């Protein structure tokens, strides 16, 4: 068995500073987001449109799962209450989960999965670029590792958006439908929650307006090549980052947490 090395080497083993301790809810939010998206992607395993893409989606899911674990492990450390990565992932209820609404949306058809992925990849990639040079060494180390993965994800999902948008009539219809369904969840990504606002003031969370600009430019570029229109004037849903989720998350967690809830306190 290989050793677990999802956690980048730590700069110091010292107890987290007071400023760092405030990071806990934000790191947890990053962890939840990566886990939920990984979980959704992993639902495709064995059911993809072609074997080659089954492997591709599993790779991306594994990247997100690894990233989630790094965040959970760091969050557990920041919290300092002896909770493990699994306690955080498996023993919190839907209203305690902090992921944005976009990533919990069901896979839908392949177009739905691609659009969800591409939009999140745009945010994720540009966020990680910022976190990588942020003031928190541990977060920067995780981002440094993850941004390489994210650079691949965004390439993969952008190319699929282009293929589906500029493919057949059917693929275009499906991808447009997916954009219509999911667009309302895109605003939340860069709308800071109260937690994020506080951390932005302290410099721990990057400026979302700048990230939004980069994201929008990226999306516009890819949509143009895909001959797809960027929706305008859509009412934006939010709440996930404050624990107010769509109904889908409850079912996802019921499945995700089934074993830990049925057999509490055991090692697996």
């Amino acid at each position: 068995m290989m050793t677990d090395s999802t956690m980048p080497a730590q700069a110091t083993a010292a107890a987290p500073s007071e400023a760092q301790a405030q990071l806990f809810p934000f790191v947890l939010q990053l962890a939840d987001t990566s886990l939920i998206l990984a979980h959704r992607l992993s639902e495709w395993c064995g059911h993809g449109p072609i074997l080659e893409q089954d492997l591709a989606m599993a790779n991306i899911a594994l990247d997100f799962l690894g990233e989630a674990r790094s965040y959970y492990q760091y969050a557990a450390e920041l919290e300092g209450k002896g909770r493990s990565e699994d306690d955080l992932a498996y023993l919190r209820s839907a209203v305690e989960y902090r992921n944005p609404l976009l990533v919990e949306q069901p896979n839908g058809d392949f177009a739905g999965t691609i659009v969800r992925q591409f939009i999140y990849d745009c945010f994720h990639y540009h966020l990680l670029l910022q976190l990588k040079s942020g003031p928190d060494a541990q977060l920067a180390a995780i981002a440094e590792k993850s941004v390489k993965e994210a650079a691949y994800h965004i390439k993969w999902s952008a190319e699929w958006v282009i293929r589906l948008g500029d493919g057949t009539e059917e693929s275009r219809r499906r991808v447009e439908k997916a954009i219509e369904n999911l667009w309302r969840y895109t605003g939340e990504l860069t709308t800071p929650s109260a937690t994020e606002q506080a951390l932005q003031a302290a410099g721990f969370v990057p400026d979302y307006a700048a990230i939004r600009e980069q994201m929008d430019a990226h999306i516009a570029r890819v949509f143009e090549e895909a001959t797809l229109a960027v929706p305008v004037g859509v009412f934006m849903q939010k709440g996930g980052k404050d624990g107010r989720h769509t109904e889908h998350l409850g079912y996802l967690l019921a499945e995700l947490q089934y074993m830990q809830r049925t057999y509490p306190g055991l090692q697996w």
Partner: protein
Amino acid sequence: MTQKEWPLWEVFIRSKQGLDHKHVGSLHAADAEMAIQNARDVYTRRLEGVSIWVVESTNVHASNPDDAAAFYEPANDKIYRHPTFYQVPDSIKHM
């Protein structure tokens, strides 16, 4: 079932800098870019490579096994091409 299959591509991987690309297998992809990405996802999951070539299988031209005798056996008796064919006195160094 009238739909066309994605073309087949042959995949070549360089396992580390300084080595040749080596044939590792094949896969299906709609275009070259996708073939490279699929190759990355299929054939380099365990750090097997640092560089990938893909060639659409229909573009690979191979010698015919029936020609094997004509192609390869004539090299058999050209032993003078090998350094061991020549005798060098023991006292001569660096040759």
